[in-house]
């Protein structure tokens, strides 16, 4: 006789573990399957927008973030080859949502671990090192997986697929994605960045890299680089870590980026194709609902993946806890809201990528032009709002082809 929990969550990341917390606290029997033996740094997203923090609070998992090392970032600097030194401005990020401060940078794996502890304390069962997970959809879905003690099978009422960009569950149950790739990305944790102001996140483009720095306090920071697909293996192989750090030696950064290049690696370096995936239909089927990046995601440059994951988690949990009807039709509000949200984020992310992750003289000239336009007309900065407030709160004109056209064609 197989175990028959109410819910099986495949993937113990931010989406999965937060859902487990909420559902277990709501009285459902929950099993979480996580493929890692122990949570460790896999170089995932580590930035949560103010609206994402609000989602975390609504889900009752906010403390896991702060206790796990979450660090409020307050200012955003753009240091860029297209911005003259005397034009660099600090954007105050602390005032976008009343009751919430700036965005948060946090160590992903530490937060997942605390969240899974909270889920277990609420009554969920956490199965680490779950291998070869297969999901068969249906009114009574079947989940089988391997453990060090042999194979296991679960027959829950519903499965939440939360395996991230790997789409392990989605691919098995026939949910197809429209994928596109604009550039490559890489990331690494560093420490000893004592010369960097801990309140300040920075982004910018110079030469053929777009850099990001997200401080996590105490001289630690998560670094990400985005770069063109040509020469995509530049940070692979021997000396890759050194080349990655050396990429921050940029004329646009204060002191030519010495604060970063002198830092010490404090985690693995990971490099990936920056793919965005939009599902071709609803991200669910009979007995299976996808959440988080697995349900579709925008380009990582936008940094809203985790905020979305928490919104997904909250929306789906509210449906599961609010009604006995768990049929696909019951999730219509989730599907509808998510489609709307991803459409906006995907649109915004594509603007950001075209603007900041394209390289060469024409791209530099385009960034200069757009900056002039934004300086003249504040409303043109609308896409920047997408990082801070929930997608539905961003004015609609920012998502029209007309706006994009104007942004990119304007000859000022």
């Amino acid at each position, binding site marked *: 006789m197989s175990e028959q929990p109410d819910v099986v969550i495949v993937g113990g990341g931010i989406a999965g573990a937060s859902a487990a917390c909420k559902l277990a606290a709501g009285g459902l029997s929950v099993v979480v399957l996580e493929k890692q033996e122990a949570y460790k740094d896999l170089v995932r997203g580590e930035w949560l927008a103010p609206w994402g923090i609000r989602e975390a609070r609504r889900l009752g998992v*906010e*403390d896991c973030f702060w*206790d796990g090392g*979450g*660090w*409020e970032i307050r200012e955003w600097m753009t240091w860029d080859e297209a911005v003259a030194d005397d034009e660099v401005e600090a954007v105050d990020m602390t005032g976008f949502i009343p009751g919430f401060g700036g965005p*948060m940078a946090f160590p992903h794996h530490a937060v997942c671990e605390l969240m899974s502890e909270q889920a277990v304390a609420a009554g969920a069962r956490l199965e680490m090192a779950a291998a070869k997970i297969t999901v068969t959809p249906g009114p009574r879905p079947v989940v089988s997986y391997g453990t060090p003690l042999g194979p296991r099978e679960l027959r829950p009422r519903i499965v939440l697929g939360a395996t991230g960009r790997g789409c392990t569950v989605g691919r098995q149950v026939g949910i197809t994605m429209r994928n596109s790739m604009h550039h490559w990305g890489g990331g690494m944790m560093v420490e000893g960045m004592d010369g960097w102001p801990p309140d300040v996140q920075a982004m910018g483009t110079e030469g053929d890299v777009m850099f990001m720095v997200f401080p996590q*306090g105490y001289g630690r920071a998560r670094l990400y680089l985005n770069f063109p697909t040509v020469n995509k293996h530049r940070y692979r192989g021997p000396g890759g870590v050194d080349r990655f750090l050396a990429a921050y030696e940029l004329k646009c950064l204060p002191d030519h980026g010495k604060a970063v290049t002198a830092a010490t690696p404090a985690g693995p370096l990971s490099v990936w194709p920056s793919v965005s995936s939009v599902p071709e239909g609803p991200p669910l089927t009979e007995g299976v609902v996808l959440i988080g990046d697995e349900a579709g995601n925008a380009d990582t440059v936008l940094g809203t993946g985790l905020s979305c994951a928490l919104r997904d988690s909250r929306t789906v949990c509210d449906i599961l806890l609010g009604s006995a009807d768990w049929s696909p039709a019951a999730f219509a509000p989730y599907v509808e809201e998510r489609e709307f949200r991803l459409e906006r984020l995907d649109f915004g992310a594509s603007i950001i990528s075209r603007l900041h992750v394209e390289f060469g003289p024409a791209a530099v000239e385009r960034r200069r032009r757009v900056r002039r336009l934004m300086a003249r007309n504040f409303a043109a900065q609308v896409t920047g709002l997408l990082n801070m407030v929930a997608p539905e709160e961003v004015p609609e004109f920012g998502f029209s082809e007309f706006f994009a056209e104007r942004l990119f064609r304007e000859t000022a």
Partner: protein
Amino acid sequence: MMEKKTVHVNGVDLAYVDEGEGPPVVLLHGFPDSSYLWRNQIPALVEGGFRVIAPDLRGFGDSGKPQEVEAYGMQTIVNDVVALTMELGVRRPHLVGHDWGAAIAWMYAFLMPRRIDHLVALSVGHPGVFATPSIEQRAASWYMLFYQFPGVSEELLRRNGWRLFKEIMGRDGDHDRYLRDLARPGALTAGLNWYRANRSPASELRITRRFPPVLAPALGIWGAGDKALLEEGMAASGKFVKGPWRYERIEDAGHWLPLDAPDQVNKLLLGFLGTERPAHEERRPRRRL
């Protein structure tokens, strides 16, 4: 994890660790710690032939957390220690304190000379030195002033993911644990009440009587990396000690000596406790009838 017991003494539930057999040693932690601070010392002392008693002082860990400021006066807390040791049948323990625990230990030592064997103070010197702090020490103690505002300090410390608290604490002590401890109901207010009851500007105005001398043999240990408590506090404490006085400075440690330099602290404790003789009490002239 060492097993904790609980007793109700002096109007509060006190959780404590009680391990080993031999001459008793009482370990007193500070802010925002608990008996967990002593996890590296307890096994070493037990191994060295001591009975170790480490309470969670009121307001911390698993002990009671009264919410009134008045419940955290130094004398009340000294009485907690007296009541706890009496309850456990301990007459004359060695006392080892860190941070607020050191302040308590000093006070216990001069108020109850017959109820203490040896005294070890970590990081915090005699209250007599702290009664007239230098301007440098006042600057280093800025947070004590900040902690004075009921409700307001709590909110500002908690705001935006405990950002200010994290900046004050840095990565010292058990920094990755404090937030979860302080998230327990009433814990933050209870911890701050220690400062409110004993470190308010008003308390500085209160007339302090001359401190009775510490007769017990006393050892002061200070870490050169301590940013909150300056060396003057410990180095100048000797003048309040009438018994044998020894001062040790540990170079590669900050404020949290029991965690930063566990081996050196253990070695100093084992080499000091029970090795010296106290000063004689002043003979009071017999009153003639």
